[in-house]
């Protein structure tokens, strides 16, 4: 697989490290959450068939984190963006 780092361009999968679900935002005030809400943030993840928005790190490269929209069925990557960018395409 090739993954396009927003800073370095197309690089081999071996340079990257998967870092989780990009749709999960860490709560700004965890202490205000109930046990259930905290559990949901900490442990529960959706696993839809098809497109996922993910966080990847270019670990053996520039080491920056970025977002990728990847289809977990076909391994197609529709888009990659810096963490503050918004992903395009892929969904149908």
């Amino acid at each position, binding site marked *: *697989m090739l993954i396009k780092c927003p800073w370095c361009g197309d690089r081999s999968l071996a340079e990257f490290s998967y*870092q989780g679900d990009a749709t999960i935002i860490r709560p700004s005030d965890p202490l205000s959450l109930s046990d259930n809400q905290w559990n949901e943030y900490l442990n529960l993840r959706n696993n839809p068939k098809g497109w996922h928005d993910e966080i990847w790190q270019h670990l053996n490269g520039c080491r920056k*984190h970025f977002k990728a929209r990847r289809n977990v069925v076909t391994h197609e990557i529709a888009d990659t963006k810096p963490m503050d960018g918004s992903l395009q395409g892929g969904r149908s």
Partner: protein
Amino acid sequence: MNNPQIPQYRLPEGGRIDRSRPLSFSFNGRAYVGYQGDTLASALLANGVHLIARSFKYHRPRGIMSAGSEEPCAMVTMRQGSRIEPNIRATQIELYEGLVANSQNCWPSVNFDLQAIINKVSRFLPSGFYYKTFKWPKFLWMSYEKVIRHAAGMGKVATLPDPDHYDHMHAYCDVLVVGGGPAGLMAAKSAAASGARVMLADEQAEFGGTLCGRAEKISNKPAMDWVARVRDELAARPDVTLLPRTVVASYYDHNMLVLNQRTGEHLPTAEGFTPRQRIWKVWAKQVVLATGAIERPLVFGNNDLPGVMLTGAVQTYISQYGVLAGKNAVIFTNNDSAYDAAAHMHDNGIKIAAIIDNRKQTSPAAQKLSDRGILIFNNHVVYQAVGSKHVRGVNISPLNENGDKLSGGNIKIDCDLLCMSGGWTPSVHLFSQARGKLRWHETLTTFIPEKSFQQERSAGSCKGVWGLSDCLKGGAKAGAEAAKAAGFTKTRALKTPAASNHDMGDIRALWRVPQPPRSQTKRFIDFQDDVATSDIELAAREGYRSVELTKRYTTLGMGTDQGKTSNINGLAVLSEELGKHIPEVGLTTFRPPYTAQTLGAISGPERGGHFAPTRRSPVHDWHVSTGASFMPAGLWMRPAYYQQPGETMWDAIYRETKHVRSHVGLVDVSSLGKIDLQGKDSAEFLNRCYINGFAKLPVGKCRYGVMLRDDGMVFDDGTVSRLAENHFMMTTTTAKAGPVLQYLEYLLDVVWPELDVHVVSATEQWCAIAVAGPKSRELLSRITDIDMSNEAFEFMGVRQGNICDVPGRIYRISFSGELAYEIGVPSDWGLHVWESLMTAGKDLKVSPYGLEAMSILRIEKGHIVGAELNGRTTADDLGFAAMISTRKPFMGQRSLRKPALLEGERKQLVGLISLDGKTPIPRGAQIVVNPDGPTPVAMLGEVTSNCYSPHVENHIGLAIVKRGRQRIDEILWATSPLTKQRVRVKLCSPHFIDPQGERLRG
């Protein structure tokens, strides 16, 4: 080689071999002669050798069935000694001078195999036999397995290290063409004409594919002339890479393919810089699959006898190698391709005793042979081959009206060669690995590519196109399309030369040749795994419906040939048994690799010392020169102890330990992780990362910190020093240096991007030396301009200054519990500083100590390491509750309120001491109340660290024990059923030395 005799099955001329270069080789200890350009298979056939191997399960005699990588029978063990390699197809071994090959799976010899008795009792060995028979009683399985493994041998592997080297290459191209036959060559030519970067790979030594083994013409000249011209044109282009002897084994996501090039297999030994094999990882923008087709065997009685061959292979042996596989042939077919073959064989002097065709009508192709006076039996079948170690004749019979039974009237025909053609199966392996969708083609009776999934297209016979002219045209078109899709938009398909265009005629499917009533003769489907029709019939009777399960139950297609000749036949027989249409039953999944790959090639140069990098401290050479024994810590090589003459290992370790407590020692701690943090929000960031406060840490001080994961478990511990207002240095454990940096980077990129902090690993930039012991201050005061007095340089202070004339830092921290300092200097000066310390401290008896002594010192002090930081312990479990800040948020804070972390039964860190004063505490032992109690014995916890303590003069340990802190002074057992050791232990505080910390501060 002088004056070799031309063997009797070798034609006097013709073929792609070089008769001026005879090669001697040995098979099963006998000497033979072949020629440059031969394969082992062709050279053996030329010498009249047909019996090559014994079969996997029944030890039946097996010969050579094909001329390519589909070969399921002729498996041999190649080479000798450290280069010995089993299960190599004789059809793919290029002959070289001095080649040594041997039959496998037979004892004492292939001609007289004692285990062939199995064949006589084979009806007692149906599919699932091993599962059914040997599964009970369970305890005997181990001994059954040994016997079965011996009986079902697949050759022997080398037990010596592999002396050869293997290479890995990475490559990028616009168009990768797989297969160098007519379609592939034309595709490469078309793609290259546009200027695209093209790679062309073919598994044979010579390009041409099927053309190498046929008497075809292109533009009215021998087809191989055309092949040579195209190959030379391609070779002359700088953007074209030609890869002969290269099998494209695997097709992965994003058009990444893995190729195996046999760079040295055709040489006696691959010498110099030539690797034995090379793996290519190729990222191709577009791929053309021109992988050809494989002829199918027909499924009749004794179809595995040596001398029963695929018809196309017999042609290949004539045209490519000038070898006759026999002199008196019977041909058995269900399609027209065999008639071209028959004419070819007849032209070269093979007598055609008869052609047996299950189709009712004589086709036009057949008519031509009939005109030559060759006997053709339509609507007949060969139902059995006859012979013991080689085919001697065939029994043929007419079919009934439906074609599902013999209608009587047997005829026996003598022959020494039986050619079979059951139609052709396109090689869709790579197409299917790339997740392309296949479609069942009723008239071709096979699966063909329907819809591509990745950036690839098929051309030629792998797409079900048989005629040569059509294959050339299809190749030209596919090559142009691929180049266009890769961005070379003006590409056009090149014109193709004139060529024949024979197809296969109408095929009459014949999946199982009917047998006479009560016949026990086996009809093989998968020759490599000895799977016969009866096995699939049995599986269907026993209720198997899924093709994937039937495959595993019967082992159909599970050999190293991956069922290249057996997949469709097996599937068809299962479908007939289930009364279903073939596409309803479905095809088994094609998985990489296309042909078996050696482990040597896969590991490539990454073995031995090259498997992983070795990390060495800047002082490494000094450790080596003083005879240190090393132990690996992750990738690091760290000194374990420094043995002196006359000392045992333990003598050295205990001497080093005691020396630190009484004098002064040096330990190289360069492998500890060091992370440099800068930026105006660094203090705030650290505050959020650690359970304890860092915002108010003054410049010139360091602090011990504990870091949690967000789930509340301890992640790592270490010290942080404030070097300037916005400049910090963090240390981590050796093992967590990488993960902690990654975690900090994640927090800064993803969670708090608004913080102005930069983090970078400084582990390799700094050499770190711990100086520990009561004389450490005295030693350091001699080599630095920093004021080392207790008043000026307090415990947990950090100073920057000159150390042995080098700018560096001194941290007053202690891991051993003694008065201690840690020196940091730039790595290039590490050795200089270490040596200067050894010189300056000679009269203080300064002495190095290793990891073993350091480990004892830290256990005595109750410091935790990876064994305690095991991802399941909380700060409170480890005794750090008092450090947890209540005045700020930090990572993992919310999880500390999780019910599971608050419950009173959690395991806590305690010390252990051996009750009798002499029995060691076993590593990893369980803490229990009564090891002899009724099972299961309740486990209260486990020993995490253990050692003999010279300071306590007893065996001590650290353990994680349920409600441990409330159990201090309790007497329990530490028991290790694994090592059958047990000891009574008393629980105590984990601080065995100086619990008040007076030594540190003195």
